[in-house]
């Protein structure tokens, strides 16, 4: 986006503080517009047809100024629709990345129906708790292996019956993709189609227009990719995703990596010329699997399959960082899903969010004076992890949060931000002694080394808890109440 301060945005707003947007002032609304927490449409006067002469021009100009550097493309509809692209910066600390990399997992049209449906359900229902929310997967990519339009359509039908997730319809044969799009309700779900190339682009351009769906353009040659993107844009098809190819190993991988970086750099910093490629990018870590020996594919869990799933995760890692907005993966093994989806959550977290929570004494559940008293630090991640481990296991207790300058337990012990003195101060300033009668405090296992000195400094009995708060339930059974 071309502007960065609320005052600049404010100049384009009515300036009447009418509160129709729900904010008290136009300036407050302006800063929320910048944060993308409000939309221009939330300001009715800006678009009020009667007031058009007054604000219409300003509104248009503002929309232009606020548009992200990389086009934002929406795939799917409803609750599980995903927005991809829409980025403004090359490095997350410069502001934040806005739309996390969407993870699409593949199914194919030669799968037996029962297997297909089970896999789609697994992809749709997968979830992992992380810092206060459940991480989920984003899309299902349907691949045409048979190259048979009818068979592909049948597969798409079964998949769409099974899930609300956005779909990616994959074939280089426009007739095959068209068969999928023609099914009742499929085009309305706004699937992403894959892919237009130097050879088939006319047909795919036709499909994108006819069915009004976003379309992927594929070419390993960046000049060709640029030409495809320009051609589609000029033809009015602007919901584009660019796939410059994902070579899985060696010099090819080095080259693919460079393409993603250069494409995104052109899109964000490249002025007018760069805007020709300022679209979301697609990586395909599942190219790892192409060319693997058939025996390896057919023996799930054998070492070559494990290696491939690792390598796929490595490619995913690389392109989550640089700069895939959507990627297609194959391994749905938990050991792949958990770290890959977690990395997406990490990189796409707003780096401006506070690192720490307020120190203090928190009651979890309905604790009594004989409930356990746990210690943790005010690093937000540590706090939320411990809090959710205790509360999801329904353990009534007190949690005292020490001020460690926002460091986790291990780092705070190593750096001296969590020591006997800090513990003494913490217990005293939050008047913890008034809440429990046992005068026993449970230190995190990773703070074991300060247990002796803490006992001396505070006069409290110190018990060393488990190294990970996930082990608290089992630990409590053996260690609480203290002798």
């Amino acid at each position, binding site marked *: 986006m071309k502007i960065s301060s609320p005052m600049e945005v404010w100049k384009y707003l009515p300036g009447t503080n009418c509160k129709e947007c729900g904010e008290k002032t136009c300036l407050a609304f302006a800063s929320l517009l910048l944060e993308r927490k409000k939309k221009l449409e939330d300001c009715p006067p800006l678009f009020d047809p009667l007031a058009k002469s007054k604000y219409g021009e300003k509104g248009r100009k503002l929309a232009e100024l606020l548009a992200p550097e990389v086009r934002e493309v929406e795939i799917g509809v409803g609750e599980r629709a995903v927005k991809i692209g829409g980025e403004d910066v090359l490095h997350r600390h410069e502001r934040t990345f806005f739309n996390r990399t969407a993870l699409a997992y593949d199914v194919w049209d030669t799968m037996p129906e029962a297997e297909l449906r089970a896999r789609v359900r697994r992809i749709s229902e997968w979830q992992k708790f992380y810092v206060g929310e459940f991480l989920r997967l984003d899309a299902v990519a349907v*691949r045409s292996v048979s190259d048979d339009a009818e068979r592909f359509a049948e597969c798409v039908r079964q998949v769409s019956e099974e899930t609300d997730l956005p779909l990616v319809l994959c074939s280089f044969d426009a007739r095959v993709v068209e068969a999928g799009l023609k099914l009742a309700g499929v085009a309305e779900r706004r699937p992403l189609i894959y892919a237009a190339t130097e050879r088939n682009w006319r047909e795919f351009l036709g499909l994108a227009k006819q069915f009004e769906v976003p379309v992927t353009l594929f070419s390993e040659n960046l000049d060709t990719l640029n030409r495809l993107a320009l051609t589609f844009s000029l033809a009015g098809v602007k919901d584009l995703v660019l796939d410059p190819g994902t070579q899985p190993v060696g010099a090819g991988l080095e080259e693919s990596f460079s393409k993603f970086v250069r494409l995104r750099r052109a899109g964000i910093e490249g002025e007018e010329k760069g805007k020709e490629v300022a679209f979301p990018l697609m990586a395909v870590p599942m190219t790892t699997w192409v060319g693997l020996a058939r025996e390896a594919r057919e023996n799930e869990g054998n070492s070559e399959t494990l290696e491939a799933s690792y390598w796929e995760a490595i490619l995913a890692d690389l392109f989550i960082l640089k700069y895939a907005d959507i990627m297609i993966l194959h391994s749905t093994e938990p050991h792949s899903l958990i770290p890959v989806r977690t990395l997406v959550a990490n990189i796409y977290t707003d780096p401006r969010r506070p690192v720490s929570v307020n120190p203090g004494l928190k009651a979890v559940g309905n604790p009594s004076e004989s409930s356990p008293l746990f210690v943790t630090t005010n690093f937000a991640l540590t706090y939320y992890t411990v809090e959710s481990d205790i509360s999801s296991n329904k353990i009534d207790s007190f949690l005292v949060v020490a001020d460690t300058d926002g460091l986790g337990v291990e780092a705070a012990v190593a750096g001296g931000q969590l020591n006997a003195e800090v513990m003494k101060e913490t217990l005293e300033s939050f008047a913890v002694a008034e809440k429990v009668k046992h005068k026993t405090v449970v230190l995190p296992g990773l703070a074991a080394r300060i247990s002796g000195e803490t006992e001396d400094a505070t006069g409290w009995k110190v018990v060393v808890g488990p190294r990970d708060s996930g082990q608290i339930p089992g630990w409590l059974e053996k260690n609480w109440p203290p002798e």
Partner: protein
Amino acid sequence: MAKKITSADLEERLEKHEVVELDGVEIKGDLEFELSAAGGVAVPPSVLQQALQSVLGVQSLAQVAQAALQSVLGGGVQAGTGETETARKIEAQELATARFEVAKAKWVGKVEEVTLGATSSDGGTREKVVKIGGEKSLPFYNFDHKMPHAPVISVDCFDIPIPLAKAVRGHYEDVMQDPGEWAKKNVREFGADMVTIHLISTDPLINDTPAREAAKTVEEVLQAVKVPIVIGGSGNPEKDPAVLEAAAEAAEGERCLIASANLNMDYKRIANAAKEHGHTILSWTQLDINAQKTLNRYLFKLGVPREDIVIDPTTAALGYGLDYAFTNIERMRISALKGDTDLAFPISCGITNAWGAREAWMKNSPIAEDSDWGPAAYRGPLYEIMTGLTLGVAGGDLFMMMHPKAAAAVKRVTQMLFGAAAKEGAEAGAEEEGRKIKVEDWVSWGGR
């Protein structure tokens, strides 16, 4: 009602608009636009532009041609008009002419190059040295500036047996009693570029091993392996200065990396010991860019040469603060490239910290609603790999790691990104690494 414009009409109009700069333009064929509906002039000028370009084969005419067309069409064409029924009838026949262009990054700074280890010609006994740093661009951005050295992996060993995640422990059980054997295994079996010996038993809360005894362990390790080594203390700020002093003396001339100097301890003693005995020093801070600048400046003041400093801005595990570590390192590296000489040093990352993530070792999820976590043995190495690779892409030059599979995978991928495949085409295995596949085949891939 349709209105037709031929290329001849266009030419005429272009002339009317005094477009005379048509040098070198070749009209390749007849151009015909079909426009429906009087008044409803809804043809996106972009489409016409496009058609014009493909026929005229020139790019720069776009604006001029659009102006001309507007006049042809009675001025009704507005920039930014969206797609309509009419537009669909007009399909471009050829791809637009364009070339992909992007500028190279212009950095002014350069990361210091640090040599670890010393061979006999430099007063040491290492077989070869390891060089890190020297970058003039972001990691693996060879298109901006060729990366001078690939990241290096140092595999950890400890001076006493320590509790390890099950998936890691299995690889070391046979050598845990003997730091020399442990170090050997790291090099021989796991291909370590370097070995880190952690003198954790010196911690008064563990064994309180005297500094002199710890120094002997360092000698053992130096004799056991020929690679450069990192010497780590226990992390106890009171004890470490004495331990690292003794270790530095024992390793005189070997140009080890002494780990580490830190703001909450007597870093002067450590820095001076490193200086006196010919070692490099690890400057460690905790996720704080300003603290890192401060500590580095203190080291400059003590007269530690720039080429003897490596920094450790702290590693947090995937899912447990990796985002902070990533951004902290990335910011430091970008600052260095922008010319901040306080931060222009190679970066070391304690990737073994990845095992602190519960997902790396815990059998099942403590959260009932989670989908199945699968076998822990498969998760752990990937946590270490992804923590390592992520920080490598942020700017890490030296990775301290533990799981052999993880160390090998990080080595392999960073070598590829570094460009080793292109450079050493003749080496064993390079054929496979250099091979490109038909990437689009994933669409119809018949495997499972």
